[in-house]
């Protein structure tokens, strides 16, 4: 799942903030103009942004949407701390130093499989882009089964509707911890229920997950038990984002089954669930 060696030199790019939209409680969708990132990004990849001059480190954001024609890309985030706080305060027109696209992508799947995209909270961001890829046929033929997207949140109030997707072509189902929207329970519980109900045929499904780590760990166990191939997109604090600091590691197994630390920024962020030791 290594990212192919980049053709030519990489360099930091200047992404211009186009717009900031509030799409949930403290949750923003921001659009940036930067044609190369807009054109090159594949679902699962991230951008590494310098939110302001006073911060030492960049912050990583999954690319949520791209518009290669307009030359823009979007991110989706919750305002949490210094980095997101600084980004949130920038006015439209601000030039943001951006590295990207970085990391690898979700792997396109065999044509006869149903892709099941399992998102916990804002883990929805890269999966939304993947859904779009699947639907637009970049990664998948037209006659393939309809992708399913499971969206989990604590409460209905926190549920962000994925931007610009049509539920006609995508089977979207919701889960909330308190049952305030859709299934009551976690998305992993929902997937489990769907398997039990026969809605999902393990041999004919492929799972893609992104969200909080406990959710991903549960998803990995479920998929391993059901023998469903599963790819997960992980998150780590990322000082560099391009593989030199060894800070962003996750414990896993190498191809020979040896325990090793993978770098999430460069060996991932998308991993085969079986290669991760949660």
């Amino acid at each position: 799942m290594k990212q192919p060696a980049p053709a030519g030199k990489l360099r930091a790019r200047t992404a211009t903030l186009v717009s900031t939209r509030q799409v949930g409680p403290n949750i923003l969708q921001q659009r940036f103009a930067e044609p190369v990132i807009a054109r090159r990004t594949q679902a699962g990849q991230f951008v590494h942004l310098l939110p302001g001059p006073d911060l030492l480190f960049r912050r990583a954001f999954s690319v949520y949407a791209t518009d290669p024609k307009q030359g823009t890309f979007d991110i989706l985030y919750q305002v949490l701390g210094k980095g997101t706080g600084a980004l949130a305060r920038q006015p439209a027109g601000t030039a943001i130093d951006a590295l990207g696209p970085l990391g690898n992508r979700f792997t396109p799947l065999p044509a006869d499989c149903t892709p099941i995209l399992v998102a916990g909270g804002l883990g929805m961001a890269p999966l939304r882009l993947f859904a779009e890829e699947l639907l637009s046929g970049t990664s998948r033929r037209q006659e393939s089964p309809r992708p399913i997207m499971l969206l989990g949140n604590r409460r209905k109030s926190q549920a962000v509707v994925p931007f610009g997707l049509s539920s006609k072509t995508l089977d979207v189902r919701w889960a909330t911890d308190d049952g305030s929207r859709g299934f009551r329970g976690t998305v992993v519980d929902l997937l489990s229920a769907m398997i039990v109900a026969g809605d999902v045929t393990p041999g004919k499904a492929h799972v893609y997950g992104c969200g909080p780590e406990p959710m991903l760990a549960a998803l990995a166990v479920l998929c391993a038990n059901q023998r469903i191939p599963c790819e997960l997109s992980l998150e780590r604090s990322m000082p560099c984002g391009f593989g030199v600091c060894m800070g962003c590691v996750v414990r896993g197994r190498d191809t020979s089954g040896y325990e090793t630390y993978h770098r999430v920024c460069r060996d991932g962020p998308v991993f085969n669930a079986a290669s991760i030791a949660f």
Partner: protein
Amino acid sequence: MPKSTIKTDLTITIAGVEFATPVWTASGTAGVGEEIESWCDPKRLGAMVTKSVSLQPRPGHPYPRTVETTGGMLNAIGLQNKGIEAFITDELPRLRRMPTRVVVNIVGDDQDEYVQLAKRLSDEAGIDLLELNLSCPNVARGIDQGSDPMWVGECTAKVRAATRIPLIVKLTPNTNDIASLARAAADHGADAISAINTLVGMAVNHNTFKPRLANVTGGLSGPAIKPVALAAVYKIARAVKIPVIGIGGIMSGTDAAEFLLVGAQAVQVGTATFRHPDAAIRVAEELRDYMQEHQIARVGDLVGRLTL
């Protein structure tokens, strides 16, 4: 600022080796060459210093390994590396082809390991200098050894006897007297001193009551430590005759100039590379601008120019 009125020369020579610029990458902050090569043209780097290589592979510490602190960062990577043999097979061939100087940084648990590492690397072509990391605060005993002038002298002497590759000895700031460490290294055959490595530090999550690093303590780097690094280099440069390579919190060309003014012949850029992958090249370009502005033709003319 007048446009290029003078011709600036950034080349420097250390231990008989010429470097295109005095701005190098720092160990552990630019990988083993592969990753950084896509982001900066190696020809424009003074040298590429590798992450520390040990005799045996080291898995490194568990996550979390880094924390951002005020003006700096802590790291407890735990010297993760594949070991010397994998390094020689997998990394060295590409490093050797890179059009820049190659400095291989080595780390051992004891003096004998440093000697073995140096011997093993002596068989290989394409290594311009060795840097002895005597100072990593993250590994048990690392501190005690590297802050004992006697141990530093002995270790330097043994490695010196084991290889003909020029030696840089990299020192820890976790000491009361870094000048004595430098003197010990210089007296026992080091060709140059580099300083500083990271300061021992720690961070706590006051909500979870847990350390923010899995390893509890780690090494502090970045702009926060620049004053400590400058004082160290200043003292070392007055204590020894061999060249000093300044490290610690260098983010800009003027930061680099400050290290040269207090006596460094070259500098290494560490943490800054995490922010800007091409930081070392930017620093070199800014240093060139600074030399223009001050009408200094040769970078060597800045070295030790501090006026008291």
